[in-house]
């Protein structure tokens, strides 16, 4: 089991926000969720343990069907775990119905009440709590102002744009001042530009309010932009937990390396091991690379090389170790597909010149910086 240098990145923001409100830690222990399927019982979530710190922004990331949404719905109380417990602080909230958990959820389709105005939507939860009228009015106004919804209080949800509906959904959840905010792929119905904009807003707001947040998405870029820590899930299990940087640079499995960003996997011969590094022979030379602690004991290993770690130089045929298959100009960067003795490679170069792009068949020399690669057990 890997020793994770977890949480140092999240501590700073946590400490700041702890002063503003008294959030509580969330602990999941041995969570299992089984659904009856057509071919027997399906395990959607398989023995998951997680600790979420107060004020932390944690993202559950994974492909569809990996169990991330089920996890979120169990935390919210919409599903009961088949076994396992959920603690908020030191209180077991497993027996609390969804409406009595101090959490608020932002739904994928916003789930605005179509028969209520914007103000009616935002004040809904406060009315249920039987707050006084002036207090409700004040909270709603504050929330609408925070979300840049001034002047829209009397509109019906269907009169709003997608981004505005999303903001109302956020305001409706925020106004409850929940201990935990839950997000179920809230940005997936927005177009690409708006998605980036809203994700910055969500991040700013969460930092300002310091509310513990759990966010579900399948978009790795979104996850990296938003999160203090990311939980990568696959087939109901947790593959790895870590900060975006840890997951990108030192993934502990091939799945994680592949799911976050693009990765080249090279079959390499390992010459020797030394703790967290190894000597490998690749492209006909011996290099020192960083290694996962489990790599030594594993029967098979593979070297992960990120596309931007590859250096590609135009050379004559005699010195070349690869040829270009295709080259795509993408503005800020260029993406090259190369054929080498180690298999097909993807390389990325930054700030390319559009009229000096390599052509298919060009001989090139590929090399990489050993510090930017990682040897993984396979």
């Amino acid at each position, binding site marked *: 089991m890997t020793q994770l240098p977890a949480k140092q990145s999240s501590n700073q923001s946590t400490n700041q926000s702890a002063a503003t409100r008294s959030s509580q830690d969330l602990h999941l222990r041995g969570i299992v969720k089984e659904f009856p399927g057509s071919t027997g019982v399906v395990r959607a979530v398989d023995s998951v343990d997680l600790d979420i710190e107060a004020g932390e922004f944690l993202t559950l990331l994974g492909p569809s069907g990996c169990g991330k949404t089920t996890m979120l719905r169990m935390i919210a109380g919409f599903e009961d775990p088949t076994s396992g417990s959920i*603690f908020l602080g030191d209180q077991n909230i497993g027996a609390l*119905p969804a409406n009595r958990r101090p959490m608020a959820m932002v739904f994928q389709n916003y789930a605005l009440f179509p*028969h209520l105005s914007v103000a009616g939507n935002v004040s*809904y*939860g406060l009315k249920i709590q039987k707050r006084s009228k002036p207090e409700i009015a004040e909270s709603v106004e504050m929330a609408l102002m925070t979300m840049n919804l001034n002047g829209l209080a009397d509109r019906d949800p269907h009169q709003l744009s997608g981004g505005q509906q999303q903001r109302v959904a956020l305001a409706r959840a925020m106004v409850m001042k929940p201990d935990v905010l839950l997000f179920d792929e809230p940005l997936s119905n927005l177009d690409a530009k708006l998605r980036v904009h809203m994700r910055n807003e969500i991040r700013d707001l969460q930092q300002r309010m310091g509310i513990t947040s759990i966010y579900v998405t399948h978009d790795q870029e979104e996850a990296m932009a938003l999160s203090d820590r990311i939980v990568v899930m696959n087939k109901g299990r947790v593959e790895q937990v870590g900060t975006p940087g840890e997951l990108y640079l030192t993934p502990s499995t091939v799945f994680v390396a592949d799911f976050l960003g693009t990765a080249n996997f090279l079959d390499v011969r390992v010459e020797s091991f030394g703790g967290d590094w190894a000597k490998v022979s690749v492209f006909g030379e011996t290099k020192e690379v960083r290694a996962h602690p489990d790599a030594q004991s594993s029967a098979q290993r593979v070297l992960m090389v990120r596309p931007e770690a590859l250096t590609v130089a135009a050379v004559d045929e005699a010195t070349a170790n690869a040829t270009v298959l295709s080259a795509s100009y993408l503005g800020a960067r260029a993406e090259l597909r190369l054929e080498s003795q180690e298999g097909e490679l993807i390389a990325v170069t930054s700030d390319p010149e559009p009229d000096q792009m390599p052509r298919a068949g060009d001989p090139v020399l590929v090399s990489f910086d050993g510090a930017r690669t990682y040897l993984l057990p396979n």
Partner: protein
Amino acid sequence: MAQRTSVLVDSLEVVAPTKRKRSWGLRLGGLVPVSVLLVGLLFPLFRIFVHVLDDETWPKLTGFFSQEVNRQTVFHTMELGVLVGFFGVVVAFLFAYVQTQLDVPGKRILHLIALLPIVSPPFAVATAVIVLFGRNGMLSSQLLGITHDIYGLDGLTLVLVLSFFPVVYMNLLGMMQRLDPALVEAAKNLGAGQFTVLRTVTLPLLVPGFASGFLLLFVEAIADLANPLVLGGNYTVLSSRAYIAITGEYDLGTGAILSLMLVVPALSVFLLQRVISNRKSVVTVTGKPSGSPQYLTGWAKWPPYVVGVAICTLIVTIYATVIAGAFTRVLGVNNEFTLDHARYIFSGVGSEAMFDTLRLALIATPIAGLLGMVLSWMIVRKLGRSRGAVDFLSMMGIGIPGTVLGIAFLLSFRNPTKLFGVTVLPAFAGGSTFLSGSLAIGLMFLIRSVPASVRSGVGALQQIHPSIEEASTSLGATDTVTFRRVTIPLIRPALISGLSFGFARSMTTLSPIVFLVTPDTKIMTSQILGEVDGGRFGNAFAFCCVLIVFVAVVLGLIRLIVGDGALRRTKKRTSPTPKKLVPTPQTAGQI
């Protein structure tokens, strides 16, 4: 591969999750409608079976098919069902085809006329057809000199098709309007002509609609009582035989046997119809419909249009006859204007029936609405394995022929129900009971209205994404509060429209009521039967007019209150949520 995170906090033990308690208010709330259905539906049905097993009745059942007359009655019933099913679907498709595929003048008017028969009281069509095409018919013999006898299978088929096709028409229209025009464009793009498209794309996609419509009409036709009584002549069917056995011969045993003969095919076809229509429609497969519908061009558009216009003319003529008949002495014989019939309706016996009917229907309808809301919410959102059973139970009220249900009520509620010698249910059907039998009639209205409100409630709820209710829960609302503050407001318009059809049905229903009326509780439809039987067509027409006006006024009021959209189901108000694709047929259908 998978790896656990950080260290376990020692004090937090892993324990099995405690099952959360559902609120008791809800359990009770769910129990009430289900028990109403058990008492008002399953129990009476059960009594029919018990009665048939009686020592006296059992031999009659075992010898039933050895008698030629019985075999013939059963055959007649099935024959009628099949013919009405077939021609009804043809007419319904023709109208839907004209609406969606043809660019012809006056489509809107054709649509409205085609819907007219939905609110028509029983007898209106049959009696008008007798006046127009009977032995001394105004059109057939007086105008054209034809001496064809309308009484019997052909007349019955005509009248039943005209009365029941609109529901199937509405279903098919819905399906055809939802048909993605891109499918037609794709077929044309691949080289298909307009008839090839119709034959290879449009018609195959509508097959479930045809099948479901046929079965629906089959059940309606074999269950109908009013028309066979008036127009059957020597052509006896099960329902009219049962009626005569009970009211003419006071033979409850034979009545029970005939009911059994009727309920078995009716319920099996009803079940089959539900299976077909509950299957997800293939009409909308993926994506948004795109493109605009293309109309049929060339000469081919005229034949269906002409037939459609002809049928509409017939419907209008029939309704004109009803109105004219209400204000003439004897239409076709003595066409003198008179207010006698109106006077008869609005004073004396007629007005009693009018107010009794209205009062009972107005009491039963809102209760049916409330029960329907709770039931549909349970069916769509709350129930697990028992969902199918509750759904079936709540729709059964219209699956069982009215005649059968009426006889079953008579068998069950005429005498007190005793369990181990203790009276658990006092008698409440019949003139000598509390409120002179109006309780049984009210319960009947209720049972027969619940399906319409459940159907529309279920339709509306399926369009509301569950996350809307989860959002409410997540904001701290209990299930009960969510139901009151979110669910009811969202499904109310659809429900009111379902209810208005339920009300119309209560006002115009005959077959289950005719067994339950008492001297002190009169119901309009059974009064009409009396008038028609006595040959006083004028009074019958006047009653029909009053019923039509009642129903029209109520439907109009509801349209006014909940807005235009309500009668076409609520679409717009749930707009912020992405629509869940719901099975296409049905919603308008089973009313």
